[in-house]
């Protein structure tokens, strides 16, 4: 919604309402960053969504949607080694993909500032796990900062680039969903002019970590981190506020919950807010522990700060009670809120919470008739047609390895075509493993963007090792789940340049797949069912992988196109006289645009929601679903 032009305005002092991810995109400009590379991942997606729109208008700036996170980190890492400021962005699980270059990058270091933004997702609003990426900072010995809100997301980003250059190390910039997806008033600062191309200065004895080089770099890294710790001790990013007997150490979004809770309960406490969480300011934390008899640590997910506090208390023989996750005051699961902090404080102080939450919970759980409304495939989603056909062709008896994208929603009834999932690209490789240990047919599904990001090594494995598996590529011409970003199959780059698209069919054939076909699911559902039967038989007969590409643009793209063009298309409707109220359409497709008329029990199509895919027409045994004449 926010106009990208607004983020490009060089008007210092202007205050606008921005999502933290938009503030980070703006921060890229204000920090004079020359290169940003990323693969989209919620909750970080809007950073790239804004940068791709801004990129063509910023002189000497380069932005790319990389193939995956490992690629992105290497592209951006090389830029910082060459001597220009760069940034890589990913979600928590994305950093796992980039872990290999990440751990070596700290050894070689960078010549210009580099920031790696990682967005963790406590409560897993849109992720497959809630891994705590802060441990990468420890493992890789990379400095880390944690902003607590959208305002800090920009201001601290500028600090992170300076910090990075001071110690020649990339900085891990760790956010969480409730930072990324919060809006707040943000003040613009000046935009500097970006440098043009630089000359790469060779220094292989630093940048090529063969063992003899790496052996010199590890002690260097440790000495840099020690210097960074000294800086961390006096940095204003690690500061205390308030006074009181009780001490609280916190970081990130939890800081807001602590402040709100103390104000609401009228409790006096000294709060140590850590903006730099690696290297942790050991002396500052130690002094803080000495000042208090009891210290609470408030942080989502793992006891990262808590463990540091316990370590420092033990090292310095401090008699202090540290209360966090270890004694069960706080959970390692899910995101926090002021309520969670207030409940812990009340448990500690033996008092009642300012709001009687137990009573609210009791009354709320007494309401029994709230029907669930989980997320599901959109009305008109081509995946619905493809999954309906897969399920029909295999009678629900095959194994259906799934992957990361909207299509994982096919786990829900009645499609139920998601049986196993680990990570990006695992549909293909788990299908390889399953086909070796069972006699069942295996039909895997993967999206087009995921296919390019992590699918190719799996295809090669399937071809070379002759795995009897079927793969349906759900090619909806976009990275749909994260908000319609382009990928190598779309023909548009992050710089908004039109380039030749990479053809999935050609890629599969080039990798040696002998059975590759492309179909369009909305052309004929019966035809699609037949194609899947044929593919399954072929894979079984030939003991080799077979690929079917099901190509149809994402329903959201189609709907947006239609709205732009403004041409009303003929609508679908259920002919009431012909409908026998058998509910087959509803029970087989679970389309959100269809419902039952409470009086007649017959199916109805909601005009406002229908995306005109016509899949229901093929599913109705009576031929009762029709389309208006033009």
């Amino acid at each position, binding site marked *: *919604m*926010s106009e990208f032009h607004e983020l490009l305005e060089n008007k210092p002092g202007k205050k*606008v*309402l921005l*999502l933290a991810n938009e503030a980070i995109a703006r921060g890229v400009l204000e920090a004079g960053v020359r290169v940003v590379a990323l693969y989209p991942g*919620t*909750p970080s*997606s809007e950073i790239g969504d804004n940068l791709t729109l801004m990129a063509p208008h910023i002189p000497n700036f380069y932005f790319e949607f990389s193939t995956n996170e490992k690629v992105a980190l290497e592209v951006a890492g090389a830029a910082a080694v060459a001597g220009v400021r760069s940034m890589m962005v990913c979600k928590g699980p994305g950093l796992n993909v980039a872990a290999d270059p990440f751990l070596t990058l700290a050894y070689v270091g960078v010549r210009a500032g580099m920031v790696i933004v990682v967005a963790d997702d406590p409560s897993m*609003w*849109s992720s497959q796990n809630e891994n705590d990426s802060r441990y990468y900072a420890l493992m890789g010995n990379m400095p880390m900062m944690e902003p607590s*809100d959208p305002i800090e997301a920009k201001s601290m980003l500028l600090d992170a680039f300076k910090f990075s250059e001071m110690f020649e190390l990339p900085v891990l910039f760790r956010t969480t969903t*409730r930072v990324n*997806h*919060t*809006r*707040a*008033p943000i003040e613009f600062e000046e935009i500097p002019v970006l440098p043009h191309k630089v000359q790469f200065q060779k220094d292989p004895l630093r940048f090529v970590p063969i063992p003899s080089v790496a052996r010199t770099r590890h002690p260097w890294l440790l000495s840099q981190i020690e210097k960074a710790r000294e800086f961390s001790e006096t940095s204003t990013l690690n500061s205390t506020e308030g006074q009181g007997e009780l001490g609280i150490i916190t970081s990130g*979004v939890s800081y*807001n919950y602590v*402040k*709100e809770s103390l*104000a*609401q*309960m*009228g409790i006096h406490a000294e709060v140590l807010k850590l903006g730099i969480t690696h290297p942790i300011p050991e002396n500052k934390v130690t002094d803080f522990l000495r000042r208090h008899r009891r210290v609470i640590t408030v942080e989502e997910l793992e006891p990262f700060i808590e463990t540091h506090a316990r370590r420092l208390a033990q090292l310095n023989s401090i008699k202090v009670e540290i209360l966090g996750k270890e004694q069960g005051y706080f959970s390692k699961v899910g995101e926090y*809120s*002021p*309520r969670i902090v207030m409940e812990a404080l009340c448990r500690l102080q033996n008092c009642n919470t300012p*709001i*009687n*939450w137990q009573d*609210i*919970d009791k*009354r*709320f759980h*007494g*309401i029994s*008739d*709230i*029907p*669930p*409304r989980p*997320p*599901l*495939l*959109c009305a008109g989603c081509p995946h619905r047609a493809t999954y309906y056909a897969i399920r029909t062709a295999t009678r629900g008896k095959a194994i259906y390895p799934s992957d990361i994208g909207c299509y994982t*929603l096919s786990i829900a009834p*009645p499609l139920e075509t998601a049986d196993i999932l680990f990570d990006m690209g695992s549909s293909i490789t788990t299908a390889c493993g399953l086909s070796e240990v069972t006699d069942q047919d295996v039909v895997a599904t993967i999206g087009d963007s995921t296919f390019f990001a992590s699918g190719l090594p799996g295809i090669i494995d399937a071809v070379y090792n002759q795995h009897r598996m079927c793969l349906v590529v759900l090619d909806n011409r976009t990275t749909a*789940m994260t*908000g319609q970003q382009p990928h190598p199959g779309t023909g548009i780059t992050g710089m908004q340049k039109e380039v030749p698209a990479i053809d999935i069919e050609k890629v599969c054939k080039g990798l040696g797949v002998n059975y590759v076909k492309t179909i369009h699911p909305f052309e004929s559902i019966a035809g699609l069912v037949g194609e899947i039967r044929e593919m399954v038989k072929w894979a079984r007969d030939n003991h080799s992988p077979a690929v079917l590409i099901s190509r149809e643009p994402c329903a959201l793209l189609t709907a947006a196109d239609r709205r732009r063009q403004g041409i009303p298309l003929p609508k679908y409707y259920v002919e009431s006289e012909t409908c026998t109220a058998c509910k087959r359409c*509803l*029970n087989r497709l*679970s*389309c959100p645009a*269809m*419902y*039952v008329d409470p009086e007649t029990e017959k199916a109805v199509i*909601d005009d*406002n*929601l229908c995306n005109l895919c016509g899949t229901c027409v093929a599913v109705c045994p009576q031929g009762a679903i029709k389309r208006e004449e033009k």
Partner: protein
Amino acid sequence: MNANNHNTINIAITGVGGQGVLTLAEILAKAALAEQLNVRVGEIHGMAQRGGHVVCTVRIGTDAMGPIIDSGTADLLVGFEPVETLREIHLIKKNGCVLMSSHVQYPVAVSMGTTEYPTHESILQSIRGFTKRIIDFDAMDLAQNSGSSYALNMVMFGAIIGTGIVPISKESALRAIRESFPKKFEKINIQAAEAGFDRVKSCV
């Protein structure tokens, strides 16, 4: 509640993915910022949106820091759909105000016959267990009369201003709408907001 939180108005907005809940939250917050007020918006993107239930928070006032509105702390609960309003009723403060559109959008589980949609009276009855201040009207009808079902969120925007709970003038609200949408949708959106405003103004 403690005096410290008196100057923060908590508004929770709930509905079905695709109804325009996020857009409403953003415009409401822009209007607040235009009134020189401190504001925070909490959103959830991605998986939560795909036709599933959506909750958004808008917090206006000097003490608003984090994005979260806990159970029992919303001054105003705005529901785009009856069952979605009920799903978040625990958020409402004692004597808080519920603003609900009565137009039903059936969840797929109901269409498939695996569960039933509660009657309107039963929904209202459950809501009354939390607050008696309920404004219940068909916002979809007003949106369609204004020219498009897509304007549902602007009907709700006008309705929010109509309650008088939020410190935003009608003028600032209408200006935020004009500044946020392409010109060609302006007339419908303004008309929708006016309709929502008038409808609610008459019951407060």
